């Protein structure tokens, strides 16, 4: 896990990969907190194939809520959405999921594997 901050743009790129499951959830929480504390826009980049679980999805959702409350942005890099979709498919993530929390269900991590914006 690596966070690169561009102070001029107040933007950070959080690079994560591999197993993003409950075993690493505490570390993930810490780095997400750090990222949202430092910059206004956090972009997620997957540097390799990822394995996710429900704990990760919840963490991401919590981070999204926090970003909205702080008027910040949390997004998955555009060309990375397929990586997340594949990870969902691998864990048997059911289709037709909807998230009441999301402002835009087409860009919800729960419903399409898309990014939170």
């Amino acid at each position, binding site marked *: 896990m690596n966070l690169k901050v561009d102070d001029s743009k107040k933007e950070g790129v959080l690079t994560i990969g591999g197993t993003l499951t409950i075993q690493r959830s505490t570390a*993930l*929480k810490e780095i997400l907190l750090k990222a949202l504390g430092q910059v206004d826009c956090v972009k997620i980049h997957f540097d390799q194939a990822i394995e996710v679980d429900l704990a990760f999805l*919840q*963490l991401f959702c919590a981070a999204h809520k926090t970003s909205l409350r702080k008027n910040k942005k949390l997004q998955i890099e555009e060309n990375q959405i397929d990586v997340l979709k594949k990870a969902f498919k691998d864990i048997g993530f059911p289709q*037709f999921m909807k998230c009441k*929390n999301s402002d835009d269900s087409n860009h919800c991590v729960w419903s399409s594997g898309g990014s939170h914006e």
Partner: protein
Amino acid sequence: MTEDLNKGRDIFKEEAYELLAKLENCLLELEMVPDDKEMIERAFRAMHTIKGSSSMFGFDAIANLTHEAETVYEMVRKDKVKVTKELIDLTFRVIDQIMAVIGKHEYDESADESKINDIIFSFKQLLSKEGLEVSHPSSLRSRSPQERELSRSSHFAEQDLAEETKSTKRTYMIYFRPHHDIFLKGLNPLLLLSELCQLGRCTIITHTDLIPDLEDIDPEACYTYWDVFLTTAEDINAIRDIFIFVEDNCEIKINVIDTGNSLDNEEAHKHLSNIIFEKAELTEKDVEGLITGWRNTGKHNEVKNNSTGDSLQDKLQQGGGMVRGHQMEVSSIRVAANKLDKLVNLVGELVTVQARLSQAVITRNDPEMLLIAEEIERLTDDLRDSTMNVRLVPIGTIFNRFKRLVRDLSNELGKEVEFTTRGGETELDKNVIEKLNDPLVHIIRNSIDHGIEPPANREASGKSRRGMVHLSSEYSGANVLIKIRDDGAGIDLKEIRKDAIEKGLIREDTSLTERDILSIIFSPGFSTSEKVTKVSGRGVGLDVVKRCIDTLRGTVDIDSKKGRGMIITLKIPLTLAIIEGLLLKVGDNQYILPLSAVEECIELTRQDVAGAHGRHIVNVRGRIIPYIRLRDFLNIDGTMPDIEQIVITEVNGKKVGLAVDHVIGEHQTVIKSLGRIYRDVDVLSGATILGNGKVAIILNIPKIVEYTESKEMTMVSGSA
């Protein structure tokens, strides 16, 4: 986390064991009627549930094995493969291996990878023989459990979709809310949702409103919950099966919202989920409106123009209250046995304290307190009865296990045996039933090994080739009578007597009744079998049966006719924890007899004693009944009262009296064990604490009678 995961695995093992028992019964039924569609369906479902759950709990060997079996049974469902003896045998081997993996070695199997691979290979061969395509083992083995589940999911979704068109479907609304700590128990809710999707058309609404902000979230807790719309031809049990291993770790509500096919389309599901999404609740009117509109026009948007002229959303705003269709709540819950034991112990303590309270109130002579004490007594009695009822389980749960035993044994011994049961619904205390398993196994093994003759011998003696073993149970007062009857060779009394003399169990000149001779087969070390077989004949077995039944405060009775068969009757008390007792006094001590064994109480005057000329007999309405004076039997000093009481009981069909100083009355007896020091004192079967805090000993009547008879016999033969 490991502790929680282990707890989850333990639950899986326990419930897998029950599913395997169901599967075993299905197989036995299928062996008789191979094209029984319902049994095929049940067997398939049991395997499917075990497969999914074993994968979830990391039992990959079980998942692999059941996957192969399930594949073949899927072909059986489609009439592409026939149910044959080979398939049944193979499936029994699957059961044995799973039992071995989860540590329940019912049939002396041990988990063995080579055996598992051998079974998998045999299943594949079976499919090849039918010219059907086999799945690749590596594709299952090398992938993660989740991947496997997903691939199977699409496979079965296609099949289900095709099959569902044949029958009427229901639409269920399922509310699934896992407990916070579900991840820590090693459970993955997404796998369950995946399984639900396999059952039919499925729409899942994820509720994330409980997920806190990043600062507050516990990253190892589950905050997510779901509403699921499922349209399927499967019944509610198929849905419950999916949640069977997590029902203690989540909240589940399953409602039927439509019993026709009206909601079996994507648009209907979409609109239902929109309602939930917007309003969180669904009314019957919503569903009715949707269905009516659909039936009339085939389009959801027409619902807006139904008779009321309102849209669904409008209706919702007017509707108010939440009605989740016809809610079908789970009618039973699973409770750990140790929790029940604890409850019974607490009720036992309460019964004891209540007795103390009643006694204290009587001595104070306070009418108001007396009323309260009586109310508490009534409530305690109700609570005791209810608690005891909770522990009662049908004896049929163990009857079913013996079907497999009979099948395997008769195959092994080359005998043909028909096993029938009756009275499986008779209920007994859970602990009693568990302890009955081993004695019944011994008796049934003995019947098949020694009783039932080989088919040719039976034919030669004019019997049918097929022998019969019948197991039945029925209530008899506070007891249950369990009978094991066979139509085999029966017992040769002369042979038994001869063997008993040779083994030094009796003397040559000992005079014995038919019943006495028959009871010798329950003596330690007695066996008439000429050869030791794997099944029986080691000289152990039936004496162990007697010892087991003694510990249950029960009795064993045997009846047999040479060439006609044998009946063994076990008389077992309904419960081991709290019994109705009769409180007696001898000297300064108090004793309890089980009330169920008491027939009547009569007085014994000095005049009666003198009239008997030193013999311990009494005339009861013209019938002479022997009695045992407990004062003498228990070596209690002191002065006897002028009028004693005799408690008449029946032991082995004979009336016997027990003479005591006083009969105090009925007493709720919470049975406490006497501890190791009294282990060999079999005339005492326990103790109880009385209302005044004193201890009363519970007497074992059959043992007292047996002991007295044997003492008198010794005295008689000694004097001879």
